[in-house]
């Protein structure tokens, strides 16, 4: 298997996730796109682990899985708080901090 296969697949996933973050307005959908980006990064780490032939990439992948779980939990809690205060999770309405 070519070494570029995994890396190109994860580049495609990363780009799709970036598009989702930029294009979506619903906060939960933006969080899902962030998950796509994180999945791409983890696939990259595992691919590097196989290319280099050491275990370190897999160790870091498991770290990323743990951190991503924490990120989703806190992110959804924040979305919930925003929804409770404003009855809406449209991100373009959260513009009080615009100068």
């Amino acid at each position: 298997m070519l070494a570029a296969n995994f890396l190109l697949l994860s580049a495609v996933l990363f780009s799709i996730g970036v598009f989702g973050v930029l294009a979506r307005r619903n906060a939960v959908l933006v969080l899902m796109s962030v998950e796509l980006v994180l999945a791409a990064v983890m696939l990259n780490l595992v691919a590097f682990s196989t290319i280099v032939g050491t275990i370190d990439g897999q160790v870091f992948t498991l770290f990323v899985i743990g951190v991503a779980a924490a990120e989703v939990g806190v992110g959804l809690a924040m979305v919930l708080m925003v929804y409770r205060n404003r009855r809406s999770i449209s991100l373009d309405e959260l513009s009080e901090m615009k100068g």
Partner: protein
Amino acid sequence: MSGTIATVLAADGINVAKNVGFGIIAFAMIFAALCVVATKNVVHAALWLVVVLGGVAAQYILAAAEFVAISQVLVYIGAVTVLFLFGIMLTRARIGTDIGLFNSGWALGIPVAALLLGVVGWAVLDYTGDDVIANQAPTPTVLLSDAYLGPYLVPFLALSFVLLAAAIGAIVIARKD
């Protein structure tokens, strides 16, 4: 024609079955990822995300990382998806087709993503070239546990504190008082 291609691939030490499996899973993953960012139904987006994350787990198995694949299934398909579905239900998104899921300037995301894909793809092809991943046996889990309890012990403990802080923080943020 395909016979000659198979001969050439086999001569290069490339596992044909592995490549075919990779291609099928990769196609399904890309299609599902496009559905995640394009569908008009929030619940469907969460379910398409399951397909992408399951495909990632399958790719881990192809990359000889079994333990990471099992962790991926447990954490993502088991926990994160349920969390997303709870988030969708608690914010009372409409279950059917929804309108207004896209920004007004959503089309700007397409050139940005295409440019990013071009740059990263060029860098990847420039870095790897024709490098071939050798066929390797599954990674023994004992190597991972040795890494965690050896050189990576301090980051491992730090991660456990991060998870604890995140859990407490999520409860504090989300509780009704």
